[in-house]
């Protein structure tokens, strides 16, 4: 039996399939992928360290820039964390406006993803059409918040801008147009056999693997598991707004497409409910500009478009946070990607990586650099555990 040579293909850090730098070292045999190893860490910017020397209001805008696509998620989750630590009660209208911005961002993120997924399989026409229709959402965002990407709407204690009645009408009109187009794209994708050939039974993640490898978000819901932070642990107004958790049983890339399209329809319904039931009242409570947060530890969960987002704050009573930790959803999905890539073709690598909707800007939190030898590396959990055991043995007395 002849021996096949194993051939290593590096996907990243520069590769047209990736929108942000990361590295997947893929071992192939002909066209089959035999093994995949992920090495994130190229996008580490020291955000958490920078947060420790800025006041809470300044940190708001630093967190906005952790990721461009989920900027509202990080900002609002930060506000929720700090408000919980300070015991602030946010007015109802502010919560409704925050929910509207949250779901508008989900629409923008999922339609961006749909276009990018079409591009990864070579369907540029669909990519251009979807991004043209996404401009409706971008224009709405610009009218509401003053900027297309860095929306800067929430603040500690409420939101910064109100939504006028004309803007409410514009939002409704924009949503109607957008919903028509997304219905057309979903029906097109389900009819077009060439697209389905690239998506069905590609990147399969069984439900057992999904749970064992800590998958989150639509990746998890496309394997049939009903898990959504908005339903399990409601925040903002999700305990009042009726909405469904969309799942699909296919466990492959096509299911992830279907789950995200369904989530878009659900988001449109949530926004419409919020527009119909928006209470009047103030949009923020007054907080001091240089605020002191009492000595607590707080954790807040959030359902970002990519999955479950965790923020942790430890404060020692000062004007700057003592420690702030962000666990982005993509970090939870990377082990699943390594499992999903095996057994597929090289041609499937871009679409499988894109199917988890990677946002490596959010993800990269820690990498090791030895400044003396200029080596850098990333540890896996076993090495980290060994190091921590050794450290505690040496330093506990």
């Amino acid at each position, binding site marked *: 039996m002849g021996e096949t040579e194993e051939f290593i293909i590096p996907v990243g850090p520069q590769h047209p*399939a990736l929108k942000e730098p990361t590295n997947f070292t893929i071992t192939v045999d002909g066209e089959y992928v035999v093994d995949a190893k992920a090495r994130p860490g190229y996008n580490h910017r020291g955000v958490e360290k920078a947060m420790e020397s800025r006041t809470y209001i300044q940190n708001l805008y630093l967190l906005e820039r952790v990721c461009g696509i989920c900027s509202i998620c990080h900002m609002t989750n930060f506000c929720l964390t700090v408000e919980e630590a300070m015991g602030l009660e946010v007015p109802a209208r502010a919560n409704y406006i925050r929910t509207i911005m949250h779901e508008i961002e989900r629409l923008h993120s999922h339609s961006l993803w749909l276009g990018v997924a079409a591009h990864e399989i070579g369907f*540029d026409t669909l990519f*251009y*059409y979807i991004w043209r229709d996404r401009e409706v959402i971008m224009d709405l965002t610009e009218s509401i918040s003053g900027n297309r990407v860095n929306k800067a709407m929430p603040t500690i204690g409420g939101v910064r801008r109100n939504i006028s009645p004309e803007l409410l009408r514009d939002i409704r009109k924009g949503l109607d147009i957008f919903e028509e187009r997304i219905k057309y794209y979903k029906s097109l994708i389900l009819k077009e056999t*060439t697209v389905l050939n*690239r998506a069905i039974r590609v990147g399969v993640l069984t439900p057992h693997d999904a749970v064992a490898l800590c998958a989150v978000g639509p990746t998890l819901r496309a394997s049939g598991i009903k898990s959504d932070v908005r339903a399990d642990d409601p925040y903002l107004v999700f305990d009042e707004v009726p909405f469904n958790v969309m799942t699909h049983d296919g466990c492959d890339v096509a299911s992830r497409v279907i789950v995200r399209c369904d989530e878009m329809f659900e988001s449109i319904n949530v926004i419409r409910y919020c527009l119909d039931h928006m209470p009047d009242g103030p949009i923020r409570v007054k907080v001091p500009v240089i605020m002191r947060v009492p000595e607590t530890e707080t954790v807040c969960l959030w359902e970002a478009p990519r999955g479950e987002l965790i923020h942790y704050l430890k404060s020692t009573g000062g004007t700057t946070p003592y420690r702030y930790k962000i666990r982005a959803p993509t970090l939870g999905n990377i082990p699943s990607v390594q499992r999903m890539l095996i057994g597929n073709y090289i*041609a499937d690598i871009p679409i499988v990586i894109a199917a988890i909707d990677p946002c490596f800007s959010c993800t990269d939190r820690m990498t090791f650099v030895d400044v003396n030898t200029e080596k850098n590396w990333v540890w896996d959990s076993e090495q980290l555990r060994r190091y921590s055991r050794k450290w505690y043995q040496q330093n506990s007395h």
Partner: protein
Amino acid sequence: MVSTELALKVVEILVFPGFFFLIVYALFLEWVDRKFFARLQNRYGPEHTGWKGILQPWADLIKLLAKEDITPAAADKIMFAAVPIVYLAIPLTIMFMVPIWNSNAYIGFPGDLIVVIFLFTLLILSVFFGGWSSVNRFGIVGGLRAALQMLSYEIPMALAAVGPAILAKSLSISNIAAWPSKVFAGNLTPYSVAVGAATVFVMAVGFGIFTLCMIAELEKIPFDIPEAETEIVSGWQVEFSGKKLALLRLGSDIELVAASALMTALFLGGPLGPWPIPPVVWFIVKTTICVLIISNVRALFPRFRIDQMSHWMWKNIVPIAVLYIVAVEMLAAVM
């Protein structure tokens, strides 16, 4: 002393219908392709260089010629330098055997259809060597995919091309191009109308198969597997830069001209038509229509995966091509 005949032949080869005309026409067809593709996608395409961007392919070519030409240290230098030249030379050679100026090609001889099919195969062989000699992982994968793709579409292409040859009873492309004008010029009887309609239908099937194989040959979506941009970053062309890349792009454009010229010569009657217009104009009109068809297919589908392409070609297209040859044989018997 250079005789005027020799001088005329040199001018014909270099200018018209030779190299200069082919290069200008290839860059024009690239502009048509890009504009139509863009309009289908609700955008402008090239817009500002020249009238509606018609000089954009020229600008791209000249820019590439001015860029730095880097050869990888581990590459096979002779093969690496030879591949762009071969990739440019082969479509030019093919074009000399296809009728442009009048119903006779510049170098037409019985059997040139087989030579043209062989030259297309040689082209893909040079693609494979281009990928192999770049000693780059992506290049090697791209070259291997090009070779695998060639194995899939060669048979249907040859079968589809042989159909009109059987009906025209000749293996010379010029004779095949002249055949519809001769056959459809007779008087109309119900029998001849029925046979004519059947011929048109069967030839349409052959045209469809040949177009698909030409799209695979040209490495355009849905068959741009050897240079899949999002998967293997330009595939076999990944290490070429500067002048070599300019030659490759020019060769790819002239390949488009050759493919559409072959499509018109075999199936659409070449540079001849019912109205008394110069044959060159017929040639330009018909090849532009072929390019528009190719652009439309380009905008319509995503990229196939290489195993799906092989399966689909062998399981679906080859049987259709065989049935098509059977139908052509029956038609040839009654004509």
